[in-house]
């Protein structure tokens, strides 16, 4: 491991949303009830965030990342209130579903932006970038442009940038939703492996129960703009989750049966 990477072996930071409320549109002009999040995420664990469409999963990540500002309440990362911090000053990295890369910059440059927003890189930076690219299986593709990569490889580049940024919190906003089953498996394994090495706190928004079951340790289930339930992911899939969760992942299943079905399919 190159120096730059090894130095960041700090454990994940605690993430907490303290009575955070948020609504799209000013003064509820759309007549929508505000979203209210009051939740503690499991520190240094992989937190799966699930919920029906429109339940506020992406909004929750955007609040933690700083793309949205709460109307009231506090966003606490590592115990500090970061509600007023711009996204780049928060100790988080985020991987989006798409558009994680600048189309006109090479793989190496895209990763390098994680170290310096002006791309003025030191030798240590370059070593860290090379290490991260090797770790994500992209060695030899440094000079490629994003359009010369497959969808899975592009998300690997985004993960490589997460490695060089080395922040104690990682936000994943359905990053593998557009990948095929085999590629998604590979990516989940990579995320789990990176997490085992770095121990950051991961908030993983996904629609796929298999994703959550495979790598999720802690479950945060959202419904109707509220945190409906939290708990160990295994308990949720063993049928201990709320009724709404079971309805969401499939009629009457939730137990061992669907788990076997899922296993067979992969």
């Amino acid at each position, binding site marked *: 491991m190159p120096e730059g990477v090894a130095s960041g072996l700090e454990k994940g930071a605690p993430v907490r949303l303290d009575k955070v409320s948020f609504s*799209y*549109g*000013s003064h509820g*002009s*759309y007549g929508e009830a505000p979203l209210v999040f009051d939740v503690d995420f499991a520190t240094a664990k992989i937190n799966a965030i699930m919920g029906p469409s429109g339940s506020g999963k992406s909004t929750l990540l955007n609040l933690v*990342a*700083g*793309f*949205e*500002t709460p*109307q009231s309440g506090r966003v606490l990362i590592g115990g500090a209130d970061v509600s*007023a*911090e*711009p*996204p*780049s*000053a928060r100790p988080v*990295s*985020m991987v*989006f579903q798409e*558009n*994680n*890369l*600048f*189309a*006109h*910059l090479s793989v190496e440059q895209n990763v390098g*932006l*994680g170290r310096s*927003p*002006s*791309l003025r890189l030191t030798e240590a930076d370059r070593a860290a970038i090379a290490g991260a690219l090797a770790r994500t299986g992209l060695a030899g593709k440094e000079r490629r*442009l*994003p*359009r010369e*990569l497959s969808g899975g490889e*592009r998300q690997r580049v985004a993960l490589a940038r997460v490695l060089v940024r080395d922040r104690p919190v990682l936000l994943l906003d359905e990053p593998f939703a557009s990948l095929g089953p085999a590629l998604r498996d590979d990516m989940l394994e990579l995320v789990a492996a990176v997490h085992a090495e770095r121990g950051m706190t991961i908030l993983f928004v996904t629609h796929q129960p298999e994703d959550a079951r495979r790598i999720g340790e802690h479950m945060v289930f959202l419904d109707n703009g509220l945190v409906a339930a939290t708990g160990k992911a295994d308990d949720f899939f063993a049928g201990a989750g709320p009724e709404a969760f079971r309805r969401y992942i499939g009629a009457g299943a939730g137990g061992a049966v669907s788990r076997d079905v899922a296993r067979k399919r992969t």
Partner: protein
Amino acid sequence: MTPAYSTDSRVSAGIVALAAIALLIGGAFAGLLFEGTHDFSGAWAAFDPYLLRVIRFTLWQAALSTLLSVVPALFVARALSRHPRFFGRAFILQLFAVPLALPAIVAALGILALYGRAGYFAGVLAVIGGGSWPGIYGLSGILVAHVFFNLPLATRLFLEALQTIPADQWRLASQLGMSARPAFRLIEWPTLRAAMPGVAGLVFMLCITSFTIVLILGGGPAATTLEVGIYQALRFDFDPARAVTLTLLQIALTFIVVLALTRLGANVVGDTNLPVAQRRYLSVNRSETWLNTLLIVLALLFVVAPMAATVMAGLGADLGRLAGEATVRQATLTSVMLAFLSALLSVTLSLALTMARRALALNRRAGRKTVLEHATDTGAGFVLVVPPIVVGAGWFLLLRHVGDVFAIAPVMVVTVNAVMAMPFALRAVRPAYDAASERHERLCAQLGIAGWNRLTLVDWPPLRRPLATAFAFAMALSLGDLGVIALFGSDSVQTLPYLLLARMGSYRTEDAAGLALLLGLVCLALIVAAHWLGKEKVRDA
């Protein structure tokens, strides 16, 4: 509450750009108001029967020009839309885009070379008219020139409207066995009628602010518009009070038209993007095909003839001697330099406004637009309310008291033309910037890429081509402009259009034809470059 990253250098850039534009327009108004209050009785006395005649003629020629451009355009556009595939179709459409950036003075000369008293068609026209051909000066000349400019424009706009008809409607029509007549009544006409107010309004607007055409082809007090009246009041009659009255009337007139236009939802810039024609699932019978072919050929001849005449007349000139003339060389150099600076300024202003608008829109989310966002958004289009002559006249009146009006000529040419080209430049830059921002905004915020880093690393690569398109187009517009330089030009500062006008004035027709060819070719090269740069898109991941 606004997001924490709302303090953005892009907004500051937009404010600086708006301030610069406000200074230019505001200075002109200050000059007008100062002069108007200074000599109020003189301004009031300008309301004489002659002035009323000028107003009437301004509106009358614009109305006729609109009618003669828009009605034929309906049928030409329909003909082109009925035949989505034939050899040369794309070329015809590109040709129809040329008048948009061809200098008015070049077109006016081409029309004179064709239909003038000594034009190529003079013999034929004399036989038809029985006797001698008096030439095309006056209303007829103005109309022919305006139709030359606006028929192709209206055709392209109508065609664009027709192409928004969903392919399914055509599939349905052919399944139901609709022939040409019901298809026109039920499918094409509703679309054309919806587009009509916008297109007609735009053409009307262009015709009441037309300066060069009326100046050159109007040929006398009987055929004068407000814009030409302003120029004559300042340059020949030295009657500033009268110029103020004319200018204020012109502003009121354009303001009313633009207001009506925006009510109608028109696209005031009139630049068109034609998508690739889709397959149409329709069969056109033989007689209609003949009719459509005839229509297209006639329109084509009408548009091509003045261009061809410009080339023929130009080649007849002693080009070698012209090229060797020091005055010509100096004017060419001046023209290119001023147009280059003007285009640079225009593109910079447009980019600043685009970035500010986007940044403000992102921060606003769902709330109401602020005044600043409105200004960066639609405000830029409203510079069309104040034609170059008006801005020029205002500054002319203001600077008259300060010192040598003619010394300021280069600054005026550069700034006024830059602002006038801005709506066109914005059309090229804004969609590209907004699309890039859509992809990159959150990533930049996350990685802390902002300001200069963002401009060079993130925004510049995808914007390079649209910016070059905007630049080439703005340069062509500035290069061909006669409005500002007609007011401020002098023997010491001459551009090519100004020199051309001077040669015409001293009856050196051959020289004028040669210069027109030169000017036309340079502008054509720039338009072709703009088109080429705009078309070839960088493939995206």
